[in-house]
Each structure stands twice: as structure tokens, then as C-alpha cells.
């Protein structure tokens, strides 16, 4: 007879076994009343514009250079965020110590992980990113562990990554980039579960059990052949089994009724950049509002002129590609680079506005969501003073309206603070030494 596999045992087996499992048992009441704590990381490649002083366009610096009454003033490139003055903060001086030692192009690979990519542990490439640590802790409470988005689908490749999410095993998580696909996956598949859906879910769970057993049989027969590959297969399949298990429980809970009429699912990354970003951000906001997921990453563009986003500045009427602008030292180029920053800030402002419109029981969705916006380089290939902005999360203890400057502080320390704010009481994250001592986070 088929040996039934205890799915709960599997759940425990995945991802470091540190998950708080009692949640599962309490599923139903507890999950439905808990107020979500969420995280969203938005990455822009190639740095932000920090113009050289001799060009005398300080007002176009991404980091604020002006001050009134001891308060920073928004520069022209971040001006679109003026309305959110009390919901955003700038953080200067952050860096990954490992970033300084690595090839500058891997800065997006390590942005959320801080891994020593110049000297990886044997058999590994990257380490888990902060978003996936959060996903592992929140996934039992929502429909999908995480939503991984990027301008280009897939993973890209080593050092020119197309995704900023790395799983518990340090492997890249392929990103999605098509609004329609994302919409269908999030809002169609799991929505309004019918009996037929439940039957097919039950069938899939059985099939996965059988496939797991078959794969183990195969592995035993395989003699010397590549065992890593089969291990990967088995781990991944176990994870799918866990997902089905979660889905089975979620199938009892109807999807929140929402207004989708503002979406344009025809938008693609080949069309108008603003339209594309707007729709991607709208989808994230909808997913947060319906509590489909609590951990989202979105890579807005890629390093070193990879992928389609390199051409966006041209599409917007600027004269050089994104990567070229990031290398510009001349005044015109630096100004254009800053104008592109402004474009991105306009998209961010749209997103924050949406998150303000959607409500949780205790306030705006934004107040229960920590939004991180940043880059892995400041000026060209400079892995220090990383442009970093935090928004939202005021219900989670964040105090905004600040421009905090750390002295070569560790980005991983900030991630640890973020984890703590979300209620994930880890002792450390990556190469963190402590939480960030910074007034943005409640001590």
C-alpha cells in the first residue's frame, strides 16, 4: 500500500524547521482575525543620482541636500513623495560589508541577502533574502508565501540577476513580470473555490504523494548519478505539497471581493513604462489588501544594461540608456539620471497612495506594511552609502519624516530591525551584528 506521508511533518521539514506551527492548528479563527504585517522590497538597479557638486544641481540629489528648520526637504527627484512626508524616511550610509569586496554587478544579487558572493560557502551561491525569511514566517497565514516580481521574468543569471529573491536554500526564485499572468495566478486560480476545485486539489495532493514516492524509488535505483539534482527535486516537490496543504485550508476561505476595474492587464514591459509599473504596483496593492501574500519583491530594473528596462529612459524621452546614464559624469547626464529617478518616485508615490486607500481594521494598509525602496550602488559602482528609503509601517513602530545618516552601518542590521518590527524575533540576519540603532525604528 501507498505509504501516506504526513504533510505536517513535511511542513516542519522545510526551511529550517523554525516555523511556528501552532498557527496551523489554530487556522480558521486566529488567521482570520490577525492583522497582517507585511513587507515589500522595491529595487532599482544602477544606483540613484547623486550629482557631483561642481555641476551645481544639488536640488536633483536623490538623498536630500536641503534642510529647513532641521527637517530635510525633498529634492526634485523625490518631490513626488512630498505628500508622504510623514510616511517615508531616507537612510544614508548603509552598506553590505561583503558588497565592498565583490564584483560591483552582483550588488542586486546580494541586496536582500548580504551574502559573501566574493567567497561563497562551498556548494552555495547566495543565501536567503530577508523577504523569504519573512515569507517563511507569514506563509501559513496567507494564500501565497510570497510574490516575486521583476521587470524581466525568470532568474537572469549569476551576477546579472533578474530576481532579487533568494529562497531558504539560497537559490534564486524566478520572478514574474506579466500583469495578466500575475492577476490570473493570484486572483483567479485561488478565488471562489468550488467543489470541483476542491476535488482537483485533493487529487493533486494524492498525485504529489505518489510522485514523491516514485522519485524516492528512482533515487534509490540511480546508483552514482547526480544526487544533488534529485535532492532539489524532492525538496521542491515537498514544498509544493506544503503549498497544496495551505491551499486546501485556504479553499474554505473566499477571496476578498475587490474592485479590479482600474487594472489594465494588457500592459506589458514592452509598452509604456509608466503604465506597466502602475499596473504592477496596483497588483501588489490588491494582493496586500486581499491578504493574498505578505511578502513581495519587485525588481524595477536590472544592472548593467541587462533586459528591457535599460531602454526605458529612451522611451521617456531622455537621451541615454539607464546603464549609460548611471555612468554619466557630465552635468546633462547626471541631470537626466535624476529625472529618471523622479519618474521612479512618481511610480512609488502612486503605490503608496494605493496602500493608503486600502484599509486594514486598524488603519491604512500602508501603516501595517514596511516598504523598502533602494539600490545596491550609490554613485557608479560604489557599494557604500546605498540609497535606501523606508516607507509605511507606522503601526509596526516606525517613525518617519527623517533623514538618518549612519556611519558605514550594515544593511543587514537594518534588515534585522525590519524583521523585529514584523514580529520575527530572530537573533541575527546574514552578517548583522545587532539591530540598527536608528530613531526610525522603535528601540
Amino acid at each position, binding site marked *: 500500500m501507498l505509504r501516506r506521508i504526513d504533510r505536517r511533518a513535511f511542513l516542519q521539514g522545510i526551511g529550517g524547521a523554525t516555523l511556528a506551527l501552532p498557527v496551523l492548528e489554530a487556522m480558521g479563527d486566529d488567521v482570520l482575525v490577525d492583522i497582517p504585517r507585511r513587507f515589500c522590497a522595491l529595487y532599482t538597479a544602477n544606483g540613484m543620482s547623486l550629482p557631483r557638486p561642481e555641476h551645481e544641481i544639488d536640488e536633483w540629489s536623490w538623498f536630500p541636500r536641503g534642510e529647513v528648520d532641521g527637517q530635510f526637504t525633498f529634492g526634485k527627484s523625490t518631490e513626488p513623495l512630498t505628500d508622504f512626508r510623514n510616511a517615508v524616511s531616507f537612510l544614508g550610509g548603509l552598506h553590505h560589508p561583503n558588497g565592498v*569586496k565583490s564584483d560591483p554587478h552582483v550588488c542586486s544579487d546580494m541586496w536582500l541577502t548580504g551574502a559573501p558572493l566574493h567567497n561563497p560557502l562551498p556548494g552555495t551561491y547566495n543565501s536567503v533574502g530577508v523577504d523569504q525569511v519573512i515569507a517563511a514566517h507569514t506563509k501559513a497565514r496567507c494564500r501565497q508565501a510570497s510574490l516575486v516580481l521583476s521587470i524581466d521574468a525568470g532568474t537572469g543569471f549569476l551576477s546579472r540577476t*533578474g530576481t532579487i529573491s533568494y529562497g531558504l536554500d539560497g537559490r534564486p526564485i524566478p520572478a514574474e513580470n506579466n500583469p495578466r499572468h500575475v492577476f490570473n495566478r493570484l486572483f483567479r486560480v485561488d478565488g471562489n473555490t468550488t467543489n470541483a476545485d476542491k476535488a482537483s486539489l485533493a487529487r493533486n495532493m494524492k498525485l504529489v504523494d505518489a510522485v514523491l514516492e516514485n522519485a524516492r524509488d*528512482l533515487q534509490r535505483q540511480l546508483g552514482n*548519478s547526480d544526487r544533488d539534482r534529485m535532492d*532539489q527535486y524532492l525538496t521542491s516537490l515537498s514544498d509544493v505539497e506544503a503549498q497544496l496543504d495551505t491551499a486546501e485550508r485556504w479553499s474554505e476561505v473566499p477571496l476578498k471581493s475587490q474592485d479590479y476595474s482600474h487594472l489594465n492587464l494588457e500592459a506589458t514591459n514592452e509598452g509604456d513604462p509608466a503604465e506597466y509599473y502602475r499596473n504592477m504596483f496596483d497588483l501588489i496593492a490588491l494582493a496586500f489588501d486581499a491578504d493574498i501574500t505578505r511578502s513581495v519583491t519587485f525588481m524595477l530594473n536590472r544592472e548593467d*544594461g541587462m533586459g528591457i528596462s535599460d531602454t526605458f529612459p529612451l522611451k521617456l524621452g531622455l537621451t541615454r540608456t539607464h546603464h549609460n546614464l548611471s555612468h554619466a559624469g557630465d552635468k546633462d547626464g547626471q541631470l537626466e539620471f535624476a529625472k529618471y529617478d523622479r519618474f521612479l518616485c512618481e511610480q512609488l508615490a502612486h503605490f503608496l497612495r494605493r496602500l493608503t486607500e486600502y484599509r486594514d481594521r486598524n488603519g491604512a494598509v500602508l501603516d501595517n506594511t514596511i516598504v523598502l525602496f533602494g539600490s545596491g550602488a550609490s554613485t557608479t559602482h560604489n557599494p557604500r552609502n546605498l540609497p535606501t528609503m523606508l516607507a509605511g509601517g507606522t503601526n509596526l513602530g516606525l517613525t518617519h519624516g527623517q533623514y538618518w545618516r549612519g556611519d558605514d552601518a550594515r544593511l543587514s542590521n537594518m534588515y534585522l530591525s525590519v524583521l523585529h518590527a514584523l514580529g520575527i524575533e530572530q537573533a541575527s540576519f546574514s552578517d548583522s551584528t545587532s539591530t540598527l540603532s536608528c530613531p526610525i525604528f522603535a528601540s
Partner: protein
Amino acid sequence: MQLALFSAFARFVTRHRFSWQRVLWSVAILARMHANCVAEDEPLPTTDSTFQDIVSPFLNRYCVACHNTDEPTSGVRLDHLTGEFADEQLRFWEGTQRQLSKRSMPPKDEPQPTSAERQRVIAYIEAQLAVARRRPAPKNGQIRRLTVAQYRNTLRELLLLDEDFTETFPADAVSRDGFVNTVETLSLSPRHLETFLHTAVRAIDAAVVDTNTPPTIECFQVDFGRTINTTPCPDKLILGANSHLLDNRDFVVDQPKLEKPFLFQPFQLRTHYRFIEGYRGNDTVRGWREFDSIYHAVYACMRGSEGYPKGLAYQTVPQGLLLRPAIPSAELFQIESTYGPKANFKISVRELPDEGEFRVTVTAAKYDDGLLLDDAILSRTAEVRNSDPVIVSGRDIGSSATVKLPTAGIYRIDLIRSQTIADPPPELDVQLFLAKREFSSRSRSTEFLVVRLAEGDLTYRVEVNERDSLERVDFVLLDDAALLAQEFARFERRAPLLGVHLGLRRDCGSTLTPVGSPQRVDNLEWAEFVFQGAIRDYPSPDVEADNVNYLAGLREIGVRSEYTDGRDMPRLAIRSVRFEGPFFPTWPPPSHQQIFGDSTDEAEQNADELQRAAAILERFASRAFRRPTTASELTMLKRIYVDARNEGATFSDAIKNGLVFTLTSPQFLFLIENSATPAAEPLDDYELAAKLAYFLWNGPPDSELTACATAGTLRASLDEQLERMIADDRFSRCMQTFTRQWLNLEKFAVLEPDRDRFPQLTRDARHELENEPGEFLQYLIRENLPVSSLLDSSFVVANEVVADYYGLGDLSESGFQFKPLTHQREDLGGVLTQAAILAGLSDGREPNPVKRGAWFARKIIAEPPDDPPPNVPALSEDLRDLPLRVRLERHRNQTGCAQCHAKIDPWGIAFEQYSAAGRWRTDTVDAHTRLPDQTEVNGMLEFKQHLIKDRLDQVTFSFLKHLTTYASGRKLHFSELESLRDQQLNLRDRGYPMRDLLRSVILSPPFMEK
């Protein structure tokens, strides 16, 4: 506890392939963790004493201070080197040896070793490198996931379904060598498994039908012809801006009764609708209105057809609808188009099936057309005119008349203006009727048209907008040898290319996507052309059930005469377009029958249910696994079936469970080579058949290959099979995939060229140019041409679009088919000068010699430059205005940059004669360069000659290296690269014929052994 630890340790050792360094490392860790569990007297392997005593102290004294983990200057660290010379360390050893030999390290201002010290270390490294390079890699059997493309092709051939189920698959990662089929980068994540599972369910649902319910099939037909509709729809319709509906009298929509060899339910198009918006265009709300006619369910629609450069974009004639080639509009150039090409003819329809395959059948013919004359044709065919031509004049304007032609032949029709008319004569809008043929155009010159006419009476009629301005029509017989007659003869031989597209209507912009490839319409007689696709592969309008907008939710079937390069082309005549879907040639369809078997097979029908199920599942799993199923697999399949049956599933549903299981199993998703020992073993015949097929076809083995494997004759008939596989159409998948990835054409695919500077680089042109390198390579291999052709050839392999891009349009008459064309030009031939490569290595504005140089070094001569180190200093500001070449020179001369750029830039300079669009530059450029080996060459021609004369072995090696890496799906070991070099020598005397090189890759150990 001890046992568990030991087996974990043993497994660790096996997994990491005898890397003693790792073993030591793991021992150290285990020892620290469980000091009491591991025996203290575990024998430690002795490391090489020379390394310990001499080399390691040397490195520590002179190198490690600047090259360590924390401070890897120039990206180099040497603190981790051991005497083991592990593969991943070899490039550091090579670098160290190079630097020491050249005496460029340690830097001058640092302590220097003595000459003897230096020599001893160099000698040691050289000796150890030689050993390391010959060291065979352990072979433990590869387990390689199918790439997305391979999965797609496999599913298609396994299930006999056209549909592409892989649209939502995570994209495959790219390896350092540029390939996506490399085992090291073919990752597997939970999302992959989730996708595989859902895809298996979807695909099996599509393949297996419910045989108890007859299918419902939609079929409608639109017929065209001037005033053929005697009961036209009285409503005047507007389908959005710039749309021109065909006159309601000129087409008929009908739902003909289908003849099918099985019972089915005809689908009746809904004709009754109620809308409040959209029926007067996009923006107006006029109140509710009822519609009840099939003409509100299906329309014939033109869009964006005004301003066609020559003649009318389209025209209805009594016989049907005439279409000129659909010119991609300026809007199509890189941004989404607004109104599509001119003429953009499509049939709009409200309802199409949601899934399944469909057929569009077009009844079409080549129109017996005439060549409209313009200044360009007249000037290139100008010659001394025959002094005494045969001219027949007709003096009736605006009414039907007859002329008598003395002989059959090619006639030029001249429209002779009245004497009183000013010079130059005004332009006229002309409609000319010759018997049943019609020609309409705006005419500027007297010479209007060239056309072939029969002997005897010809009825003609000419209509012009200013009747008085025309005096008569002359029919001038042309000598067959006349240039104009020859031009006409070429025109007359051409065949329009019929293309069908499917998409959805949007307020602006077309989503039309081609259905299959364009088909040549060669004959003047009507013939049926069938286009088939899977409906879900095309964009669909998702419209809510209670939609109230007349214009929402419309699908479009586009029918076009496809455009290549603007050459004159006889018009395409369309008489009817028929849609049928879902399309089933039989019921149950082949996808179903193939799985469930022939229902007339008595043995199978008489068997009991479980036996039948077992037979069905075994047959399917054996095909899916590319080998016979094992007993335990079959037991598992049967159990799945029985379990489902016991839970009340129908026979068919229980079988489907087994099918989904099969498509989710590692045996299907992976190419598995089962290896018993770390020593090399030959592939078994099934593994070989699969490896061959996924290499040469990027897809599964077919029944013939599998039969060879079963019979055990595959090795004996290998050459015969190779020949067959290379000649097969599927071989183009290998050539396109390999070439794109080897030569990195992805860069070209995402290029955003400067439209003002390079207007020729249109989206359509780029699409064809991107195929050129693969087509070229395929030709070289099929013809077994020498490898030197890769570098230079007297021909290009081009279709009309590509030929036109290179200014060779006159030589090509092959439509979209790639054919070899002899070019007789200095700037063309070989891959190095192909536009997809050269333009892909620019930013769309300026050519970039650094990118071109690095590409050349990496791809063509396999001397990959090192990665740029961290923190490259920027060029100082005052250099900005200098020419790129000078800036490069300065950059090259900066400390830290020089080392690498000296090995990159000189190659790139040789490409300087080519623009950012990959065309020969008209301005003067300096392409004089001194290559790293000090050879001087001036420009591409000399460069190619140098490569062919002095570097052919190296280019051959690079080709072999890349092809072998692609074929074997993994990174090659050093020793394998070394044996490739030896192996290629066998073909050296014959100039390295390309197909023989490919054969040698297949016969090589990296391919044949596991």
C-alpha cells in the same frame, strides 16, 4: 549515531567527487562538532611537499598580502590555492604563472623574489597544470532538467497538441557560456514543480476528451466580391478610429454546414445583442440599442489603409477582395502600433471557442496583375526605345470599348494626356478595366501600367477624375528583351505570401499574432490554404459576461499579403475565409486516440479493465520516459489507477491521474543518465537516443530513433541516423537555439536602435536578421562546408528582408525563405559581419569596439577576457569629448585596466568599419589595429584573412568547445577541452568540414559517456 554520521559523510564524499580539500574541510567541521565520534587516527592524505615547502611560502611572502579573501585586488585571490590544483582553481594558477613569467607581478615597488625562486615556482606550476589538465573528470551520470523549450517541444510531440503550455514557465537561467541547457544552471524551485504539476493537469485535460459527449464546433465563413450580398445589413457600422469597413454589399457571412466523419453539435453564433456604448465609435454613449443580425457578430474590417504608396491598398472586385502587401507602418517601428500595417484587413468576430485547436481556411489566388509604373521603375528600365513600336490606341474614355490586339504579349498602357494640358501633366486618379481585370492608382506619368494581354479583342474602360484631361489610351507592345518587359516578367513570376493572424481588437493598436507561417500563393486559380493553431496561444479579450460596449470583446482574424521589402508584388485575391474550431480531424481526436489506443484492437478491447489500463499507462509512460517502463513504475501506475477507481473515478479519469503522474515524474522532466561507477561508462541506447534528439532537435526522440534503441541497432546505424536527423526540419531548432546562445543574439533582440539614424532597422527586419546567423550555420553544416566559411564566405544566407537590409534585394526572390546568395561584396560573408551580431554589440547609436572585442575573444577564439574587477575607476572628465577610440586607449593605459583591455580592444577595432546597425559605414574610419600577438591588420577584410590563415585551428576549437558544451549540456572539464584540441586535428587536412565537426562532437567522450 556513528553510523548515521558515517553514511552522511560517505554521501558527502560521493557528492563532491573526490575533492579532498572538501573532504578535509568536512572532516574538520565534523571533528569539531563531534570530536568524540570521529576517529582521531583518520588517515589524512599528504599534500604535495613542494607546494608545502616552497610554493606556499612564496605565495604568502609575495602575493597574498594583496590577493586575499578580504582584499581580492583586481578580483584575484590566491590565499586559497592548494597543491591539489582543483579545477576551479586552475585559472588562478594560470594567471599566477602568466604574471610571474612576464615579471609583471609582484609590482615593481614591492619586494621581489630572486630569479631562481621565481623560476622554481613557475616550473612547478607548469608541471602541475599539465597534470591537472589531463586529469579525467569523474563521470557519475548526468541528471538534467528539460529546458522550457525542450519541455514545450516534448509535450507537443508526446500529446500531438499544438498548444504551447509553457507561457507561464519561469525562464531558464543562462550559463557563463551563454547556454540555457547547462546542467549547472538549470535550477529547480518549488515554483517549477508547481508549474509542472499544473501544466500536466491542463495538458492532459486538453488531450483527453469525453467520448460520450459529441463536440460542439463553431464554423462560419465570409465570402467576398463586389455586390455579392443581395440582402446586406442596413446598419452602418463604425469600428473605431481610422477603420474602414468593407461595403456591406461586398461580403456575405454564413454558417455553412460542416461535413465531418463523426457526430457533432454545430455552434450557433449569437446574433442578438443589446449595447449602450461603442456603436458609434469609442467615446459616445447613446442609450440602449438592440442589434439582431449575424452582421453584428462578424464583420469584414479594414484599418489604416489610406495613403498606400502605389495603387490602392485593397479593392473589392467581382471575384473577391484584392490585397496589396501589408506595409508595417511607421508606428510598427519598435513601439506598439496604432493601426497596424497598411492594408490591415481583418475579420472581427464576437465569439470564438475558449480552447482547442482551430483552422482558418482561406480560398485565395494570385491576381493576374499588372505592374503599376512609377519613376523608380521607369528610370531603371530607361533605354533607347524601339523606333517603330506596335501601338494600338483606344480613344474612348469613361465608357466600355474594344481594341484589337495584333499579338499576345507584354503591353505597356500609356495614358495620353490632351494636348491642351499643361506640362507637366496633372496627376490623375485612374481606374482601368481590362476585360475582367481592374487596376486603380494615382498616375503621374503617361506610362501607367505593364500587363500581359492576349491576342484579339480586348474590352477596356478607363475612368479618370478629370475626363477631359485624357485623350486616348495607348497599348504599346514591348519586346520581350526590353528591360521593362524583363522587369514585368520578374514581377509576374512573384507569388504573394498569404498570412493569417489572430488577435483581439483594442481601441488602438493591433494584437494580431501570426498563425503558422505565410504560404506562397503561386497560382492564378483559386485554391484553399489552411492555417492551424491552438486558440489559447493567441491573446484573448477578457470581457465580462454583462458587457454593454459594442466594441468590447472582439476577436480579429487578420488576413494579409505579407510584406517583405516593398518590391512590386502581384495582388493577393481572397474569395473566402472560413473558421472552424475547435478543429477535430477525427473523434475522438488523435491526441486522445494515441493515448487510449486503437478502439478496433480486439485484444485490448477484450482485456479486462485493469489490463487495459495497464497497457494504456505503460505505453504512455514508456514514450514519456523515453525508455521502457520498469516493473516498479508500472506497479505504481496501476496503483494510482486502482486507487482512483476505488474512490469512484471513471475509467478515463483514473487513467488521467496516471498520465498526470507521468508528466510530473522526474523520469519525464529530467534526462537521466544512470551511472554505476565514477568511471566513464557508455550511454545505454535509450539514453543515447534521447541525448541525440535533445541535441539535434531540441526535442524528444521520434519513433524511428526509439525503435533503433529497442532493436539495439542505434550505434551501428549512427551515421545513417545523424544524416536523417540533420536533414529533418527539427534540426533548425538546434541550429537556431545553439547559434543564438553561442553568439549571444539576445543582445540584438532587446536592442533599442536610434530610429532617426537607422530607419531600416525596423521591428520586422530585426526579426528576420535575428534568424540569419542560425540559418547560415545550418546551411554550412548541411552542406558540410569548411570552417573557414564561418569567417568568410562568398555568399550570404538570406531571405528577401535580410537581402534587402544588405542592399542585395535584387538577388533574392525567396520570400521569407532563407537561401544562399552570392554577394560579390567585400563587406559581407561569414558570421563576423552579420547585422544581428554587430548591432547587438552596440547601444543602438554608436558601435562599441570593447563589446565587439570581448565578444570576439570569448565566442570566436575562446579566449574569454577576465571579468572587470570591482571599483573600476571612471575616466576623467576632460576626456569626454575625445573620440571613443582615443578614450579607449587612455582607459587601456590606466593601471588595472590595461591588462584586460589589451586582450579585448584590439579585436574590436577590426570591426570599426561597421556601424551600430551592423552596416558598412560610409564615413572614413580607422580600423587599423595591432592584435595582441602583434599582427597588424587594417580593417575587416585583412582581419578575416588573418584569422583564416593563422587562427583557423583556434576558431575551430572555439566552435567545437561551444558545440560540445551545448551538446553535452554541461561545462566541460579541462581534460575534455584538451582532448577536443587533439580530436579536431583529424579533420584539419580537410579544412575542418562543419558537418564532420558536428559528428565528431557526437562521437566524443563528453557526449557518448556518462
